[in-house]
């Protein structure tokens, strides 16, 4: 056996150990859907513009649900309604209910900070804070009560390994997060969200601002997270939705308001869509 082979084996051993998340969440397989987020008659208005009109939809535990549709059809609004990020937008009004694990998140009793700890979010543009790599993960951890130095370091290492960033940055954790490449920045943002041990990950076109190679890396990462987390992903890339999603929800603009047109198994949406609009959109005829 030459040294090259040994290196190869070491690398594969290392690879087996890189996932430290533990076994798949004991959630049901996707053929036995169990809802974790239940959206009922949910409407969202900005001033007097309606972004979403009466959306009813279940999101299933452990699955990847893709939200597809043309720009301006309310996909991102829907996504940010799930962790109440819509609270940041002045004059934004919601009607209807969203339940996460059976709890209505728009009730006043719901603690938004706890909600957002359970529901991580990744944006289109990578948004690491202008701090060191280490501090980017430390900041939210400390906010949520993980203050012991050893614990913070352990979690940081674990999540950086999980997003495949550890071997790239372990020797420069104190350098600026903004000095990383776009793909690395996005993976750092995912790591930062994972550090809080969320149940649900919301992803708003996480690959569209990245070059094709980085985009592929992030996509593989998302697939690797399936089952461990419930993932809701907005994407304009239909091929990507088709590759990675278990379920797909198709949104369309009708009478200047976003509507949910069709929801179902990803394969059904793409191969045997019920609605004409869906068929036109996924075949590329419209949108």
């Amino acid at each position, binding site marked *: 056996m030459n040294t090259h082979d040994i290196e190869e084996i070491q690398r594969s051993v290392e690879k087996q150990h890189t996932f430290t998340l533990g076994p798949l969440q004991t959630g049901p397989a996707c053929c036995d859907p169990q809802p974790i987020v239940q959206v009922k008659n949910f409407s969202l208005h900005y001033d007097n513009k309606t972004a979403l009109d009466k959306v009813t939809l279940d999101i299933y535990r452990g699955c990847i649900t893709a939200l597809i549709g043309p720009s301006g059809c309310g996909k991102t609004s829907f996504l940010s309604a799930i962790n109440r990020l819509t609270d940041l937008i002045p004059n934004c009004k919601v009607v209807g209910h969203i339940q996460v694990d059976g709890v209505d998140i728009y009730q006043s009793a719901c603690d938004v900070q706890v909600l957002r700890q359970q529901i991580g979010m990744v*944006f289109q543009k990578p948004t690491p*804070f202008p701090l060191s790599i280490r501090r980017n993960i430390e900041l939210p951890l400390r906010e949520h009560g993980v203050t012991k130095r050893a614990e913070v370091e352990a979690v940081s290492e674990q999540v950086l390994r999980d997003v495949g960033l550890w071997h790239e940055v372990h020797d420069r954790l104190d350098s600026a997060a*903004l000095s990383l490449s776009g793909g690395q920045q996005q993976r750092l943002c995912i790591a930062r*969200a994972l550090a809080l041990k969320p149940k649900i990950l919301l992803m708003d076109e996480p690959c569209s601002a990245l070059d094709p190679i980085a985009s592929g890396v992030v996509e593989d990462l998302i697939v690797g997270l399936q089952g461990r987390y419930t993932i809701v992903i907005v994407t304009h890339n239909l091929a990507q939705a088709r590759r990675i999603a278990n379920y797909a929800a198709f949104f369309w603009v009708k009478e200047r308001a976003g509507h949910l047109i069709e929801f179902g198994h990803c394969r059904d949406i793409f191969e045997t869509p019920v609605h004409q609009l869906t068929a036109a959109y996924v075949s590329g005829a419209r949108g």
Partner: protein
Amino acid sequence: MFRSVFTDTLLRWVLQAGAVVSALVMAMIMLFLLSESWPVLQHLSLAQFLTDSSWHPLEGSYNLTPMLSGTLYASMGALLLAVPLGIASAIFIVYYASPRSALLYRRLIELLAGIPSVVFGFWGLTTLVPLVNQLHPPGASLLAGILVLTLMILPTIALMTYAALIAVPDEYIRSAAALGLSGWSMIRGVALPAARTGIVAGIVLAAGRALGETMAVLMVAGNVVQHADSLFDPIRTLAANIALEMAYAMGDHRAVLFVSGLMLMLLVMTLSGLAGWLGKKSYA
């Protein structure tokens, strides 16, 4: 860099002329200060400005340290008060005030920045000094100087911090919120570090103004040449010293005043050097 087109060439010359003129003015002032203080620098050692027994320029005794300490105490005192106040008011305006009251506060602070220093001095003399006097005579004191300076540099710090905080990208704020950070954690952990360069620039500008401010301080600080032992002791700053004595100074005395001008410039330059070094350590 660009293809040479007549208008481009013209613009280049106009811009370059502007740059050269402003750089030249700076160099000329420096040169002027040096040439005016040259006679005394030639036959007095620099150490004398620190070791002479006292400031009695007519008797050839040129100890500048009381003025130096007065300048530093007053400026540092003012910064100690104005930096937290200024940053706090900017944070309030950007993140907590309603749009309408934010506008009102900002306008008021801008107005404060526009008040001439002699008006500050006048107000200090008629209002502040009697108040300090009630606390502890004589009233005209280091404390009065610090308070007037604080008011004068507060708007600079507040407005620069405001501009820096407003420029913090929205994405940072949304990301911080999405991670479940509370408002204050977001401000302390993300917004302030992101705005650091602008805030430091504001503090440096303010410090420069505090070090060099003449009229307002001269009117309220008492102008006694001494090292202050308490906040209630009158002090004289370098700038006030120049203004007070320039009218009648002659010969070496006059040249020494220029030396103190040089010292002031040196102080300000050290400060901006320090700020540049601090800015480099930013992660942005």
